[in-house]
């Protein structure tokens, strides 16, 4: 039978072998640090930056067209791009914060995980809330921009509120699926780790 403490010898040999197999010299370490932008996280950042650049290009092109050729569509384009940019910016800030997180070298694992899980929880709740608030705000803004009279009756208020909430609720499953696909598994894993650390189990004296 293999005993736990016997494994320490095997671990030391395993560690030695791992270090020999993967050992890097000073130049390779420097390269690894500099080339980090090419790894998986770097690729996500690159894709995000590319998205932002493309969006900026489309925005400039469309607004240029509206300004110089057809000024009647300008208010509508301004509204659409304001909303699109608002969402994109929020999403980018969230992803950059997530990817550029600096692990605290002073905090222990439990403290670090607690902070991270709290941040994730607040972030996800904020996205849910924004998802419902944004279409309502968009519908009201659209009404104010396009309404000739600009007067908002109580009846119209509830109609707009219903339309805005309806859009938000209809598209909610799509956003829920996307958010879960992006960070759901990671968030659940972090919560599982934290639960494991928070668990204070009693020692069973009958064993050993």
């Amino acid at each position, binding site marked *: 039978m293999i005993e736990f403490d016997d494994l320490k010898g095997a*671990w030391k040999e395993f560690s030695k072998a791992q270090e020999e197999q993967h050992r890097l010299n*000073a130049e390779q370490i420097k390269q*690894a640090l500099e080339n980090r932008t090419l790894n998986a996280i770097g690729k996500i950042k690159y894709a995000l930056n590319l998205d932002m650049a493309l969006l900026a290009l489309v925005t400039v092109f469309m607004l240029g067209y509206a300004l110089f050729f057809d000024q009647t569509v300008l208010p509508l384009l301004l509204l659409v791009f304001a909303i699109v940019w608002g969402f994109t910016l929020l999403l980018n800030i969230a992803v950059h914060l997530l990817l550029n997180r600096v692990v605290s070298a002073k905090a222990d694992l439990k403290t670090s995980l607690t902070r991270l899980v709290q941040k994730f929880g607040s972030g996800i709740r904020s996205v849910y809330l924004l998802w419902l608030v944004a279409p309502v705000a968009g519908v009201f803004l659209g009404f104010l921009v396009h309404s000739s009279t600009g007067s908002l009756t109580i009846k119209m208020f509830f109609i707009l509120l219903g339309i805005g909430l309806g859009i938000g609720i209809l598209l909610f499953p799509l956003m829920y699926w996307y958010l879960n696909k992006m960070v759901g598994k990671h968030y659940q894993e972090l919560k599982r780790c934290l639960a494991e650390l928070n*668990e204070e189990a009693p020692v069973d004296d009958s064993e050993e």
Partner: protein
Amino acid sequence: MTPNSPEKDKEFIDLITTHQGIIHKVCSVYCQNETDREDLFQEVLLQVWKSYASFKGDSKISTWLYRVALNTAISMYRQQIKRGNKQELSLNELQLADKPTDTAFEERLKFLYQAIDKLNKIEKAIVMLYLEDYDYRQISDIVGITETNVGVKLHRIKDKLRKMAKNQHT
């Protein structure tokens, strides 16, 4: 790479060159294929680099490195994509170049690797520190749980490993 003084850069590279074994060990325990391993190595390296300026030498370099490496390995965001099947550790990797053929030793080594792989992320951190000869207080400082809880968790891990060893022999 963040701009820094050349002396500080050199000091950092020297530190990593000397203590890189810690990062390799953490990567071996938490990654199942070479791509993940490289990603984690670079991420840990970056986190150590970012934290280096704030390291005042309050704790041992190795303890500080373990703290950063384990925090990174456990909390790192990984892309939710399939990267092929989990890589099985080949017999060649388990055999040590300068070690004479020792079947019992190789068996222990293979068992160790397979057993650690079956533990959850927190158990992996605790058992790794234990195997590195860290005492309960030091493990408690790095992981952030009480010494009693470290003892309880190690007790459970020992039970799990015993059961695994028993199953292997039956």
